[in-house]
């Protein structure tokens, strides 16, 4: 199997990994321990595999790792973890926006991308941000609540830090 050297900045750390030429980024990340990025539809429809590529939300299941080489990648692990959750992650917990949790990493990545672009999203903005994220458990209402809560908290944290 032909390979390439995948060189990128993943969650702030420079990496150099040998990966198959035809491997998609979801697999590469998961094969290197970043299993918060989920393997869902594998056709770019469900959003479970979302990561940030140069700050922009993308579906890693339809992005060849070779295409992502040379770029800056942030996965759910780079946003926060159980010991130090990001305010967005805490908002999803506090809003009860998680049931099975499979779609949650992708939704949190989408929320991060949304709030970077628009610190005070409307309910419609939030709906649009989640349009490419499928969830069979929550019914989305609590996810939208979580985005509102996250926007408040991220906004407060920004003001507090200023």
């Amino acid at each position, binding site marked *: 199997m*032909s390979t*390439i050297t995948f060189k990128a900045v993943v969650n702030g750390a420079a990496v150099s990994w040998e990966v*198959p*030429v*035809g*491997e*998609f980024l*979801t*697999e590469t990340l998961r094969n290197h321990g970043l299993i918060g990025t989920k*393997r869902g539809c*594998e*056709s*770019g*429809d469900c*959003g479970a595999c*979302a990561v940030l590529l140069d700050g*922009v*939300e*993308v*579906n890693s*299941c*339809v*992005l*060849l790792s*070779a*295409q992502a080489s040379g770029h800056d990648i942030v996965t759910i692990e780079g946003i926060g973890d159980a010991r130090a959750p990001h305010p967005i992650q805490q908002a999803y917990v506090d809003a009860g926006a998680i049931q099975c949790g499979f779609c949650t990493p992708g939704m949190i990545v*989408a929320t991060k*991308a949304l709030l970077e672009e628009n610190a005070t999203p409307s309910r419609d903005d939030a709906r*649009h*941000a989640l*349009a*490419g994220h499928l969830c069979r458990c929550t019914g989305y209402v609590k996810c939208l609540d979580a985005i509102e809560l996250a926007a408040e908290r991220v906004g407060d944290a920004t003001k507090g830090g200023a």
Partner: protein
Amino acid sequence: MYLDLETYARPASLADALALLKAPGTAAVAGGTHLNVHGHERLRAVVDLQGLGLGGVSEEGSSLRVGATTTLSELLAAELPAGLAALGQVADAEKNRAVRNRSTVGGRLSRDRSNGRVATVLEALEAELEVAAEGPEGPTRLHLHLRDRLHDVATGAAAGIVIGAWIPADLRWSSYLSAQLSAVDAPTTDAALSVGPRGVHIATGCHGANAAGTVALPATSTAATVLLADPPTGDGWRAELREVALSEIPTHTDALAGGDYRRDVAATLVVRLVAACLAENGGAA
């Protein structure tokens, strides 16, 4: 998930890209959002266009040029002339943001007939495509009619690389509508309309495997041009225009929609576009 690829290349020049694409089993890739969707079992090499600088939206002379690797998100964010609003609307119609962030204008024109949206709008906006092809003395830039390129894509005869779309900037008004099962589904059908010095242009997309793809509706466009020049009173024009549209919209039946239903929806979209156009431009043509 893997593709059985042997090589990946990210050339820095069009000449290198065109040379690499000559190898059998090789495809150009821009955003790549459909690499993992359609069957690419026979693909052995990809040529990534990201290093060629083919993106960007700019006004050049009497045209708007949209670079081939411009993403739908970039198109949505671009400052577009008021008459080309349909371009922003078609980008906004892709509600899956992660797809919108990667999916490119050129990529949308280089897939098979299940393609939609961008081709429909560009057809209605009288766009021409700029294609780079191999010439005896290096890359040659050609301007092609959109429908010729789409035909070549559908029949497997497309050569070269789409590097941009040129759209007349003198269009006064345009709009786009689509019908789809959900916000993130491909459109069952869609329609776009422009009005400018050369009259009204209407196109529709008949999507799905083995469908007709994007088609212009010349008779409907002529009828709409007449309506716009002499705005009608009452609503009788709707049924008449609908009949004209139905006579030239192709049918296509697949698992998602029956042919008559799909054609009926497309005709409805066309009538709605003409009604919106009349409301804003009646008497202007």
